Structures are given as structure tokens and as C-alpha cells.
């Protein structure tokens, strides 16, 4: 008995020393806890700053001035005129050619009252932006803004404007920030992501199944595996160069749609961009797919084989259904990556100024990140506001696509 106690005493702290030791270990734990908490808080602060900066630019006061005084157009205020009178104002104050172009686009008779009213404002009155303010200034410095407008632009109209609006979503690109919208870019992004998923999902899942279930552990397959892991970290602009060489130039007859009878002149089309994005996200999708497949428990496979299932039956009935939630998680990550990529799109030749909607996979296109990049590089402050609005559109689109993927994932993980 005494020998046992003596042995213990020689190594481990006893009594008061033991209590001090425990307290000190607990203190260390508390310090680490604080460090981890601060890391989380740091992230939250960074996120809030981002949201603040974006929202700050999206709303705010705008001082505008009409190039033409509305009072010179008619003896009544403009908003009291009926449609015919508005059309008359349009006809009387525009160049004949310009009016005819409008009439050709959509006859005045078919346009609604408010459409004609907007046309009058846009084409005849021609509002000019004199100065814009951020949301913070608009809220806290309203008096200063009023004073500034009164002294500097006595003629101007001051109004609170939400730069993001339904017309922002539905109008195409324009050189005038008050009239510019993201319609073309939004459609371009959706087309591109859709086609990217269409190609990347089956190829990625297929490769993951092969590598995880069929490939034997030999030198060749190990090299493939290592390369896939490394490819996931290659800078996106390199994929852009690859896409330019392969899809835009070499496969030009296909990507321009010539062999499908839809020639768009060259290979700088949605398909080329989608295939480039596919290359970019394939490594991510394959690695995530492999991890999901590997996570399916061995016992499940054994149960299936034990009943006389073939390898393919085991994969199809058990491995894939159980791996699908994980595969969807990987797809979510990949989509998020692809939707925000700018560099490869610039290299494969997305247009920065395009006003026609993409009408199919072989159309010229632009995408939201390109549009944002373009707008943020303009010096005029108005473009900062629409760039922020486009960022909001991009984030909302990203979140909605992710929500769809999460819903799909939950659906599949509840099955069974």
C-alpha cells in the first residue's frame, strides 16, 4: 500500500498542488475559447462591413436636373397630360428619325400611359444626375444635403432613390447609369451557370464514382488523383487561358454554333464560357463527390454484396443515394465559385457592353461579375451605386441557387 502511494506521489501533483494544476489547465482552455470566439467575431464584423458598404451605396438621395424645363413643353403639368398629349409632346420634341425608331420598336398605340410618360422623361426632359449621396449621408446629414442642393443646384430635384428596382432588373445595359440595368448580365449568368451544371454534374459525379469505386490503387491512378487535387488550386485565370485556347479557338466550329446552324461569328459564346467554368469547378466537384462516396459506410456495401448484388447495383441502389446529400453540398460550393468568377470570363471574351438578351447557348453574353467589374472601374460616382446594386443582385441570385441545392439535398437525405 505505502509503495503504491509513494510511487504516485513521486510523479503526480497532490492536494493543493493538484487543485492549482486543474485550475491552470482550465485557464488555458478558457484562453483558447476566447481566441476562437474572437476569430468568429472578426468574421462577423467583416461580413457586416461588406453588407454595410453595399447597402450604403444602393440607397440614397439623388439630385437631378432636367435638360429641358418641363414647363416649356406644355401649359399643364406633365403628370396631368393624357396619353395622346404625351405622344404629341414626344413627337414635337424629338428628331423624326429617333421617334420613328421608337415607333418601330413598339407602336405608341400599344404602349401604356406610364410607358409613354417614362419615354417623355427619358427622351425629352433628359434628366442629368448632378450629385448622389450614400444611405448614411441621406439619413444623418439630410440638412447638409438640403443646404448643398439649395446653394449649388437651385433648379435641381432632390429625391430619395433606390438604385436597385424592378426596372434595374429588367432593363439592359446602358451608358447612362440612371437607365442602366442588369437584365442582360443576369440572363447571361443564369444561362452560363445552367449549362455549366448540366456538363459538370454528370462528369464530376461520374469521375468521382470511377476513382472511388472502380480505380485500383496503382501508380497511374495515384497520379490522376494527385493531379485532380492540385487542379482544384490552380488560379482561375489559367483556366481562362485554357478555355480560350480549347473552346474559343480550337473548338470554334462547335462553340460558335456553326455546325448546329446558329453561327454567332466566333467562339466567344455562352457555351465556351460554360465549358471553361466546367473545367474550373470539376476538380472541386470530383473531390467532394469522392469524399461523399467514401463516407458511405462499408457495412452498407457489405449488406448489399451479401445479398448477391453486383457492384453496379450496390453503387446505384446504396452508394449513390447515400452520397447524394454530400454530392449536392459539393455542387453548392462549386456553383458559388463559378457564379462569382470574373477572370476566366474576361479571358474567354465575355462582352462588357451588350444590350441584347442571350437567346441560346451560342449567344454573345455578359455576366454579372463582368458587369460589376466594368461599373466599378468607371470614375463617375453614379456607377458605384449601380455596381453595388448589381452586387446585391449577384448575392441574391447566389443565395437562391444555393437554397435550391440545399432543398434538393434535404429532400434526398430524408428519403429512406
Amino acid at each position, binding site marked *: 500500500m505505502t509503495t503504491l502511494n509513494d510511487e504516485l506521489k513521486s510523479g503526480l501533483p497532490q492536494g493543493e498542488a493538484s487543485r492549482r494544476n486543474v485550475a491552470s489547465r482550465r485557464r488555458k482552455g478558457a484562453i483558447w475559447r476566447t481566441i476562437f470566439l474572437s476569430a468568429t467575431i472578426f468574421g462577423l464584423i467583416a461580413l457586416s462591413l461588406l453588407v454595410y458598404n453595399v447597402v450604403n451605396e444602393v440607397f440614397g438621395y439623388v439630385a437631378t436636373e432636367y435638360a429641358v424645363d418641363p414647363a416649356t413643353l406644355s401649359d399643364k403639368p406633365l403628370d396631368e397630360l393624357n396619353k395622346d398629349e404625351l405622344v404629341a409632346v414626344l413627337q414635337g420634341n424629338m428628331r423624326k428619325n429617333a421617334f420613328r425608331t421608337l415607333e418601330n420598336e413598339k407602336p405608341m398605340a400599344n404602349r401604356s400611359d406610364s410607358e409613354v410618360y417614362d419615354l417623355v422623361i427619358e427622351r425629352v426632359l433628359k434628366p442629368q444626375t448632378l450629385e448622389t449621396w450614400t444611405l448614411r449621408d441621406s439619413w444623418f446629414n439630410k440638412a447638409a444635403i438640403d443646404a448643398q442642393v439649395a446653394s449649388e443646384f437651385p433648379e435641381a430635384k432632390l429625391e430619395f432613390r433606390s438604385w436597385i428596382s424592378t426596372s434595374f432588373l429588367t432593363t439592359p445595359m446602358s451608358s447612362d447609369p440612371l437607365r442602366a440595368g442588369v437584365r442582360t448580365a443576369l440572363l447571361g449568368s443564369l444561362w452560363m451557370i445552367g449549362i455549366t451544371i448540366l456538363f459538370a454534374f454528370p462528369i464530376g459525379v461520374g469521375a468521382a464514382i470511377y476513382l472511388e469505386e472502380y480505380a485500383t*490503387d496503382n501508380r497511374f491512378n495515384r497520379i490522376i488523383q494527385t493531379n485532380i487535387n492540385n487542379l482544384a488550386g490552380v488560379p482561375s485565370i489559367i483556366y481562362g487561358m485554357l478555355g480560350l485556347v480549347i473552346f474559343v479557338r480550337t473548338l470554334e466550329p462547335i462553340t460558335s454554333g456553326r455546325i448546329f446552324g446558329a453561327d454567332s461569328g466566333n467562339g466567344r459564346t455562352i457555351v465556351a464560357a460554360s465549358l471553361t467554368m466546367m473545367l474550373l469547378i470539376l476538380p472541386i466537384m470530383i473531390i467532394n463527390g469522392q469524399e461523399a462516396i467514401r463516407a458511405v*459506410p462499408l457495412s452498407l456495401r*457489405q449488406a448489399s454484396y*451479401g*445479398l*448477391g448484388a453486383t457492384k453496379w447495383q450496390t453503387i446505384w441502389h446504396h452508394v449513390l443515394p447515400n452520397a447524394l446529400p454530400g454530392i449536392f453540398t459539393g455542387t453548392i460550393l462549386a456553383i458559388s465559385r463559378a457564379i462569382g468568377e470574373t477572370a476566366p470570363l474576361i479571358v474567354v471574351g465575355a462582352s462588357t457592353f451588350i444590350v441584347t438578351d442571350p437567346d441560346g447557348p451560342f449567344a454573345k453574353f455578359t455576366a454579372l461579375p463582368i458587369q460589376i467589374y466594368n461599373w466599378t472601374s468607371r470614375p463617375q460616382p453614379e456607377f458605384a451605386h449601380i455596381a453595388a446594386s448589381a452586387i446585391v443582385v449577384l448575392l441574391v441570385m447566389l443565395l437562391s441557387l444555393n437554397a435550391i441545392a440545399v432543398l434538393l439535398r434535404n429532400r434526398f437525405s430524408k428519403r429512406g
Partner: protein
Amino acid sequence: MTEKQTDTAQHTLVVRNMNVYYGAFRAINNVSLNIERNKITALIGPSGCGKSTVLRSLNRMNDLVNGARVEGEVLFHEQNLYANDVDAVEVRRRIGMVFQKPNPFPKSIYDNIAFGPRINGWKGTKSEMDDLVERCLRQAALWDDVKDKLKESGLALSGGQQQRLCIARALAVEPEVILMDEPCSALDPISTLKIEELMMELRQRYTIAIVTHNMQQAARASDYTAFFLMNDQRAGELVEYGPTGDLFTNPKDKRTEDYITGRFG
């Protein structure tokens, strides 16, 4: 190994001079064994002595392990299961398996049973499948517990019920032999007893081989017992094989006696 080589037709499975390798490592050394028809054969021995490896070699589950290789013969109806023209998929349908940890599919109880027949080319109608599911669940003594919740997940059952579901699932593909790899090691004593009773009933229609760590279980619930031990090269060898009563009351080998009396292992 004193059992004389009798006509193979009397035995369901005949193992002849089997060696199993994992890569360069010899896990099983020269095992010969007859599994008697409509009997329960227990494989016992200390951990790592290769009894599970022997069991898995009987329906080619070892094919799934990377680098595993079997030498020698396993005869099933006089056909060597390791002959070149034998498909492991066909073997596993006729020689079913129940695993250590209950592993029902994350599907409904009904689908757990129906899966086996479906993937094996079942051609019957829906009502025939209903009958089959009921028959298998009755054979596994599970029908009364689950008849009102066939659409519920198999994972919602208790551990013992899950294991009986796995047995029912194995019965659904009409095997002749059922291999059980420590089927009760994850179960409580009452569930264990139920599984043992079930084995006794199934014996009338099926041949059963069971690996167990529990010597009382082997003594209680088996007709024949095979005792395995590692040799100096850490390869598993068959030390003694015979009717369970003889082996436990009158072991011929000193090592068997030491093991069953608890002197080692």
C-alpha cells in the same frame, strides 16, 4: 483434424486445404473443414485467429478486401467456389451473410426485405412480394413486431430487431447457407437469446455457420464447433473440430481444453 473425409454430398460446404493471404501475409494456414447440412456450426477462437476470415471465404466476401487471395478449395455441391467460371455474385445469393453490427438499409422495413429479390431479377407480382416479405419476417420472428409499420425505416427498430431484420433480409433471396459473423456481439442478452432461438428454428431449412466470441453461445446453440488458434507466424489454424458436445466435454487437444476452460484467450 481427425474428421475423416466423407462423401461431399452429405456436407453443404467442404473446405479443403484452404490458405488465405492478405497481400504477402498468410492469415489462414491449411484449413480443412466440413459444414454439415441443416446443422449449426460454430467457429470459435481468440481474437485475430482468423475465424471471421474463414467465414468470409465461404461466400467470397473476402473478394471485396484489397489484396485478399484464397488458395485451396471450397466445395459447394461439389463445385469449387473459387473456380474461374464461378461468379461471386451468384455465390453470395446462395450463401447469405449476417454481419456483426446490424446493418439494415436506410429504407423502409418492407424495402429492406424486397431489395434482395428485386436486384436478383424477381419477376413476381406486388402481392407475391407482400407474401414473400411476410414469410421472411415470420421466419425471422419479427412479423408480429413490425407488421403495422412496414413502411417505417428499418433504422427505427431496436438493435435486436434490426439484426432479425437483417436475417429476414438474407432469407428473402432463398439461400441454402447463412453465414453469421458474430451476430450477437452488439446485442443485449435477451436479444441474443432470441437470435439463438431463431437459429435453432432456421436450422431445419438452412445450414448455418456462426462465428462467435462467446463460448457459452457456441455450447448452447451449435451442433458442431471448430476451434481456431494462431500459429507462430500469426496465421490462423484449425485446432480441433467436432460435435459441440464432444468438443466441450472431452476435448482431444490440450490447447482446446485450455481455451474452453478459460486458461487463456
